[in-house]
C-alpha cells in the first residue's frame, strides 16, 4: 500500500488516526514535532505526509515549506490536518505547497478518501 508519516502531537488523535490508516493497510510512522518531522521525511521519504499545523518546535507551515524546498522531499504529497477551519488558513497552506487540507474533526471515511486521493 504505502508509507505515511503522521506529524501530530495529540496522543488521542495519533491513536485513532493510526488505527484507522493501519486498518486500511497503510504503514504509519508518527513524529510529534516539526523538526523531527522534517528530519524523518528526509531520511525515510514517505509516500504521504499528514501534517498538523499546531505542533511543537516548528509549526506545520514551516515544515511544509522546508519539505518543498528540499529536492528529496519536494514531491511528497502533503495533507494538512488542522482545527483551523478558516479559509485563510487553508489558502495559506495551499500556497506553501500543501496538496490538500482536512479540517478537524473528521470521519475515518473522509481521512481515507483524502489519503487515497493524494498518495
Amino acid at each position, binding site marked *: 500500500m504505502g508509507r505515511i508519516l503522521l506529524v501530530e502531537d*495529540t496522543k*488521542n*488523535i495519533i*491513536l*485513532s*488516526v493510526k*488505527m*484507522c490508516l493501519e*486498518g486500511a493497510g497503510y504503514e504509519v510512522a508518527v513524529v510529534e514535532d516539526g523538526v523531527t518531522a522534517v528530519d524523518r521525511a528526509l531520511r525515510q521519504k514517505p509516500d504521504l505526509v499528514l501534517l498538523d499545523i499546531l505542533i511543537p518546535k516548528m509549526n506545520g507551515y514551516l515544515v511544509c515549506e522546508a519539505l518543498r524546498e528540499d529536492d528529496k522531499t519536494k514531491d511528497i504529497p502533503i495533507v494538512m490536518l488542522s*482545527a*483551523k*477551519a478558516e479559509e485563510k488558513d487553508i489558502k495559506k497552506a495551499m500556497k506553501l505547497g500543501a496538496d490538500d487540507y482536512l*479540517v*478537524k*474533526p*473528521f*470521519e*475515518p*471515511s473522509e*481521512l481515507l478518501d483524502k489519503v487515497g486521493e493524494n498518495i
Partner: protein
Amino acid sequence: MFNTLRTKILAGYLILILIISGVALWSINNFLGLSNAINDIMVENYRSVIAAQNMIGSLERQDSAELLFLFGRQDKGTEVYRSNEKEFLKWFSRAEDNITIREERDILNKIDKGFTKYLQDFNQLQIKYQKNPQQAKEFYLTKAMPHFNEIKGWCQDLLEVNQNAMVKAQKRANKNANDAVYSTAIISIVAIVLALLFGIYISNLIIKPTEKLIETVQKVGQGELNQEIEVKSNDEIGELAVEFNQMTKRLKDYEEMNVNKLMAEKNKSEAIVKSINSPIIVTDKEHKIVLLNPIAEKLFGIREEEVVGRHFLEVIKEEEIFAKIEEVAENGFIRDTNQKEKVLKFSYQNKEHYYRLMVTPVLDKEEEVSRVITFLDDITHLKEVDDLKSDFVSTVSHEFRTPLTSMNMGLSLLLEETPGEVNDDQKELLAAAHEDCKRLIDLVDDLLDLSKIESGKIQINLDSINLGDLVNASVRPLEEQAKEQGVDILTKIPQELPLVKADSNKITWVLSNLVGNALRYTKGNGKIEVSAAKKGNRVYVSVEDTGIGIPEEYQDKIFEKFVRVKGENAIDVSGTGLGLAIVKEIVEAHGGKIWVDSEVGEGSKFTFTLLLAG
C-alpha cells in the same frame, strides 16, 4: 372737571346748547327791536297823524260854519261852529297827549294860541254881524280867514312832522331788520365755527388717546412687550391705559420668566450634551455647526468656538458622516432602515476608537427638519468585548475540535469494527454517542460562524446572481434525504426573475438551512416548495413546508439563538439551535428581512427578501 368720558361728552353738549341758546337770545333780541320800531310807527306817530288830519277837518268845517253864519244862517252856523270847536279840541288834546317829537310841542303851542285867537275872531264876527253884516264879512276876509289859514298851515306842519317821523321810523326799522339779519348770520356762523372747533376738541379729547391706545396695543400684539401707553387723562381711556400697561408688564414678566425657564432648559440640555462621553455634533438645515461637545472637539481636533457657524465639511472632512447628515436633512429620516448602523473607526490619543453613527433629525412645528443631531456612539468598549468574545469563541471552538476529532474518530472506528467486533447493544450505545458527538461538532461550527458574522468578520461578497441556479444547487444535496423521508421538494423559480444582489455561498447556506429545517419538521407524504417572486425592487424568496408548524408564541423568537420549540408538537431533532440565527444574520447583512408565517399542523412558510442586482 373733565374726569370721565361721560362728563366730557356732556360738557361738550352743554357748551353746544349754550351756543345755540346765545344765538336764540340774540335773535329774540333782534325780533324785539324790530317790534319796537314798528310800535313807534304804529303807536306814536300814527296817532298824531290821525289827530292832525281830524284837526284840519274840524277847522275846515268851522270855517264853513263861519261862512254859513255870514250868509244868514246864524243858528245853524253857530251850532256847526261849536260842535266842530269841540271836535277840534278833542283831537288837539289827543295830539298833545302824544308828543313824541320836539317840534310837535312848538307847533301845538302855536296852534293853541292861534286857535284861541280864531275863537275870539268868531265872537267878534258875531258881534259885528249884529251891527253890520257887511262889516262882518269884511272882518272875516281880513282877520278870520287868515287866522284859519295860519292854523290849518300849522296843523299841516304837525301832520308833516309826524309823517316824516314815520318815514324815519320805517327806515330805522328796515335798518334794524337788516342789522338783525347780518348780526344773526354772523353770530350763527361764529356759533357754527365754535361748535365745530369744540366738537373737534372734544372728539380729539376722546380719539387721540384711543388712537394711541390702538397703536400701542397693536405693537404689543406684535410682541413688543416693552411698549407703554402714555395716556395722562383720568377718564375711562386713562384707566384702560393703566390697566393695559399693567397687563403688558405682567405679560413681559411672564415672558421673561418663560425666557429664563427656556434658558435654563437650554443650559441644561447643553450641559447634558457636553457631559455625554460620546461625540455629538448638532448641525442646522444648511449643515452649519450649531453645537459640539468636548469629546467631539477632541476626536476631530477642533474647538467649538472656532467652528460654530461653519459648514460641516469645511471643519470635519468625513464624507461618510456627511452623506448621512445630508440624507437625514433632506428626508427627515434614513431611507434604508434595514441597513445596520455604520461602524466608524477613528484613531486619537494613540488608541483606536469605534463609533456607531446615529443621525437623528429634529423636526420643527411644520414637521420640517430644523436641526440634525449626529451622535457617534462610542462602542469601542463593546467592540473590545465583542473581539474578546470572538477570540474566546474561536479559541474555545478550536480547543473543542481536537478532542472532538479523537472522540469522533474513535467512535467511528468502533462502529466500523476496525479494532474488533462489537455486539448490537454496544453498537447502539456507540451510535448514540457518535450522533451526539457529531451534533457537538456542528454546534462548534455554527458557533464559530455566528461569532464571525456577528463581529462582521465574514465578508459578504455581493454579485449579480441567478436565484434559480442557487436554489437548485442548495436543494440537490438534500434530494436523496427527502426521497427517503417521502417528501417532495418543488422549486418554482420564474424564468424571467431578474438577477439578485447576493453572496452565492452565503445564500446557498441560507437556502440549505431553510430547506434542511423544513425536511426535519416534515414527515411522510409532505411537500416542500421553494418559490420566488419580484415585488418592487426586492425579490421575495419563500420556503414552504407542510410540516408540524410553529406555535404563534415562538414565531417571533424562532430567529434567536438556541430557541427551540418546546411542547407536545416538538420533535426531537438534531439541530444546533443556531441555524436560523445565522440565517437571519446573513439575510440582514444582505440588506434583507426574514420572517415566518406558520400554523400548527398546517406547515410553515419562511420568507426572506433580497435586493435586485443593479
